[in-house]
């Protein structure tokens, strides 16, 4: 090869190499800037860099939205569904982790100037006063060049020639992707929020168990932040306000709820100046300090409030009285009341435990029958049953319905003084024969969890094997009509008996080992749907609760169950239930105490009182 030919070859080789390296990042597109044509995985891209890839997403999809909410990570706790309902709009959540007001201003400007934007909700967090225009990583925290007005070519080149680690990570993650979110795909691209499906079905009960799960609240880190960027932050807000006025965008500014220990880390004079200056720019809803701030169970972690609190905040703004909102939660701050308001929030304190939460001991029965059982003591004789119920009644306990408990949590409707829940699993005919009369006699509400496929059966479904007879439609109708008994699901057919099944028995709602995830989810959904239709057909009410067969559940099962419209779930774990106003998670994974033939009325009463703490 002559030297000349070598040179030509070299230039071509170099070009091809450079182009192929770029093509790799373009095709895998770990930041979603080039359309993510092949993987179409914006949940991943947004997690990598929400600032940039959300803009890339919106450039292609902005006609699906007409309103935006924007701010740092706590912004994700305002549920899109509630925003859409209250504003009668289609919201996209422009949350960017670690965002400061510089980010918010750039992105807001771009959105207002380039997309249709009716409403803009700006969520200000107290630590926005600490930082301004900080970019901690040029790949994962950088703004889109379009929003920042920087050089587009060098911006795209930077991502085109980003080190391959990002693209390789994306490919590796794709192979281990699951239905639930993982650390690498934390976003819902459709509305821009964090994927909290699994997060929001966690079991929440009393403060002690919460502290065990979130020890940070027991030993809250003390820091001494100084708000050095109040002027920058408020300056950005003022420009956003001007922009909204100019483009006739409805601007709503909210200051997010802050956990009280974090709030008290800030210097009072900083907070005063920060809030008064914001009020001077625009009236804003302040949720930062109230009794909510003192209740750790309203927070996911040390700085992020829960979605249910976002629901409360929006309900306050829109005066929705069907949702529980503590009275001191949320004030519209104007220049006129700013000073007084700031003094007031420093006076706030925790709510009385008994005002916001209730203890609900829950009993678990199966069969009530004089015939006794084969030895495990779970069949309770009618006499014993009546003694137990009589004792509870005499002890001042009122058995309530699930709906009552749900109303308490959702809208703060009061419960009777000593509420308990009485539940029956499996749906045996003897519940009608022996238990129902007793319940009527003492006027106790109860919940029966039926196995859908077994309704009316005297033999195991599809076989001749005799089993304890199950309730029939008619019996269920009669019971439901009394107003005392509610029917809920114990799965339609996911509580099989391995003795009678030919293949692998589905004894509970857990995924089989090695079972395809999507097939399992589909099965779970169709089972719940079948149960739903059956119970609604018989009792006239769609079930809202599920008792997990064998008490067994997983995060995935709980997520799918919640998505199917189930608001209350029960396990067979013994222990107390504390339900908390405004926290629907306190209705998930509720504990129950097995009641046996040998359980004495004293034991029962003692459980109920211990459970009350």
């Amino acid at each position, binding site marked *: *090869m002559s*030297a000349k030919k070598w*040179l030509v070859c*070299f230039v071509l*080789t*170099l070009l091809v*190499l*450079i182009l192929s390296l770029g093509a790799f990042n373009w095709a895998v597109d770990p930041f979603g800037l080039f359309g993510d044509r092949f993987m179409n995985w914006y949940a991943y891209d947004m997690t990598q860099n929400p600032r940039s890839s959300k803009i890339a997403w919106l450039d292609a999809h902005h006609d699906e939205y007409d309103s935006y909410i924007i701010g740092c990570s706590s912004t994700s706790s305002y549920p899109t569904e509630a925003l859409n309902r209250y504003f009668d709009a289609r919201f996209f959540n422009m949350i960017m982790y670690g965002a400061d007001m510089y980010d918010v201003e750039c992105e807001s400007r771009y959105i207002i100037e380039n997309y249709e934007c009716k409403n803009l909700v700006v969520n200000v967090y107290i630590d926005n006063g600490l930082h301004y225009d900080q970019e901690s990583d040029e790949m994962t925290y950088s703004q889109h060049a379009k929003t920042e007005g920087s050089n587009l070519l060098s911006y795209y080149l930077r991502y085109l020639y980003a*080190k*391959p680690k990002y693209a390789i990570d994306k490919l590796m993650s794709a192979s281990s992707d699951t239905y639930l979110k993982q650390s690498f795909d934390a976003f819902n691209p459709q509305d821009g929020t964090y994927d909290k499906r699994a997060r929001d079905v966690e079991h929440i009960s009393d403060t002690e168990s919460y502290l065990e799960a979130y020890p940070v609240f027991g030993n809250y880190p003390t820091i001494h932040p100084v708000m050095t960027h109040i002027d920058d932050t408020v300056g950005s807000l003022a420009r956003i306000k001007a922009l909204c006025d100019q483009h006739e965008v409805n601007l709503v500014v909210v200051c997010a709820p802050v956990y009280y220990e974090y709030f008290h880390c800030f210097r009072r004079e900083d907070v005063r100046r920060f809030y008064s200056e914001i009020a001077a720019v625009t009236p804003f809803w302040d949720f930062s300090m109230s009794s909510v701030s003192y209740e750790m169970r309203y927070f996911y972690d040390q700085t992020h409030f829960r979605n249910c609190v976002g629901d409360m905040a929006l309900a306050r703004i829109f005066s929705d009285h069907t949702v529980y909102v503590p009275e001191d939660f949320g004030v519209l701050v104007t220049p006129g009341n700013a000073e007084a308001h700031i003094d007031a929030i420093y006076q706030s304190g925790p709510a009385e435990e008994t005002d916001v939460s209730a203890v609900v001991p829950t009993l678990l029965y199966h069969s009530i029958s004089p015939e006794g059982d084969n030895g495990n003591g779970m069949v309770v004789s009618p006499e014993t049953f009546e003694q137990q119920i009589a004792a509870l009644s005499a002890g001042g306990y009122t058995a309530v319905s699930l709906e009552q408990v749900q109303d308490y949590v959702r809208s703060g409707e009061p419960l009777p003084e000593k509420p308990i829940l009485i539940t029956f699993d499996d749906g045996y005919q003897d519940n009608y024969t022996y238990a129902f009369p007793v319940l009527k006699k003492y006027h106790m509400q109860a919940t029966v969890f039926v196995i859908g496929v077994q309704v009316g059966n005297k033999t195991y479904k599809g076989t001749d094997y005799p089993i304890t007879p199950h309730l029939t439609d008619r019996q269920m109708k009669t019971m439901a009509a009394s107003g005392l008994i509610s029917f809920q699901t114990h799965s339609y057919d996911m509580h099989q008996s391995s003795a009678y099944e030919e293949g692998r028995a589905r004894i509970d709602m857990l995924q089989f080992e090695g079972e395809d995830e999507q097939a399992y989810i589909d099965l779970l959904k169709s089972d719940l749907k079948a149960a739903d239709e059956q119970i609604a057909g018989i009792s006239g009410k769609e079930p809202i609760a599920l008792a997990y067969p064998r008490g067994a559940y997983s995060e995935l099962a709980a997520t799918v169950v919640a998505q199917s419209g189930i608001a209350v779930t029960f396990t067979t774990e013994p222990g107390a239930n504390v339900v908390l106003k405004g926290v629907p998670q306190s209705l998930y994974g509720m504990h129950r105490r097995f009641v046996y033939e040998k359980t004495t009325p004293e034991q029962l009463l003692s459980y109920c009182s211990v459970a009350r703490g």
Partner: protein
Amino acid sequence: MSFTSFPFLLLVLGTLVLYYTVPGKAQWFVLLAASYVFYLWASPILGLYPIAITLITYLAALRLSALNARKGSMDKARLKRHKRAMCALTLLSCFGLLFALKYLDGVLVTVGALTGQKFTPLSLVVPMGISYYIFQSCGYVIDAYRGKYPVERNFGKYALFVAFFPQMVQGPISRYRDLGPQLSAARRPDAVFLRDGIQLVLWGLFKKLVIADRAAAVVGTVIDDYSAYSGGIILFAVIFYCIQLYGDFSGGIDIARGVAELFGIEMPENFRRPLFATSIADFWRRWHITLGGWMRDYVFYPLSFSRPFSALGRFARKHLHGAAGKILPTSAVTFIVYFFIGIWHGSDPKYIFFGLWNGVLITAALLLEPVFARIAKAVHLDRECALFRAFRMVRTALIVLIGRYITRAETFLGALDMLSRTVNTFALEPFADGTLLKLGLTAQDYIVLGVSLLCLLIVEGIQERGVKIRRSLGGKNGFVQWLAMFALTAVVLIYGFWIKGEIATGFIYMQY
């Protein structure tokens, strides 16, 4: 502007295009302009240093040349006095400046520490590459003093010699008689030069980015916190430091020489496979050759023939018999030269020890050579056999390695501490328990580094046998040539630029 940065690539490409389009007479000017763009890029103010040095040495050389021309018409002794004064004044001002910039703080602090007084450091900014162009231009002044070569009368061309951008920040240190005519020559693009230049640049990038920058990660992690590691890991890191230093410095020189070749200019070699050195003196003939050459021409020879050392030599030859009598003065001068080489590296006292370490060993080797020869003869050892050569290579490498403890440690005492830990806390377990993966490199990095080092060793082994790699490659068939080019380009692009360790480092020798 780093050699591995995008602006540098643009500068080289832009300069190339201009260089080969302007008329031959203006070509040197393009290089001069590019050189000052390169230099002023970092800081316009610091650009005054090379201009000042250029001016001083230019005028001094002119004056010396004028004095030389008056050889016949002037009293010889007076002429010599004149010339000496002129030369000394120039060298003093240049080296005085270098001293003030680089050493004054260190000296003040040391003196202060010794006398208990406190000096405020001046903290002057050391402009990049100042040692290199001061050495280069002072060599030129001494040549003018000796009058053996014509001086450059065109100020611009001389300024280009001082500031020629590929070499000005880290060498090689050239002589005017070699480089000057090449810089001002008119040239047409030559495919062979271009090809060879590109190959050399790629090879330099490979050594710097793929090898040195990876090795650097381990070095930084371990040595900056060496007390946290056991002896084995410290030794491992110092070996990596040797690799880093060689890859970094020789890679940088290859890039510089390669870029110069693109302009049809050949610069002197600065490294000749130091790993293959068989003695510490041999090592210094292979490492930083142009500095060694400068020291030889402008320190070693003049000192050897200076009056005191000549007298010492005569005295020794008369009174001491045998080898010692012949080489005593040479040894003394050698010792001084290595002392200078030591302090050339920096103002910290540790560099004096580094100089002494080399000086003592080389001097000792010189003095003991006859003894070794006698012993070898007595035990019938063939000192040229392959096995003994290998032994000498390993021995030399060990000596160099110990010297590297001194240059890399914070202080001389730190170096001693590191050495003692290497020996006293040596353990092999850390090499198997995953410690290696916590030093800043991934398993993949180690593999890349290992394979790259193997390639480097093979190539240098072939070169050591006298094969000119690029020439011999040029004779191979087209596919082999393409494969070599493709592999090198791909490795540099992928493992040099694309997949980089988190720690990217500047060129070490730019500080000198």
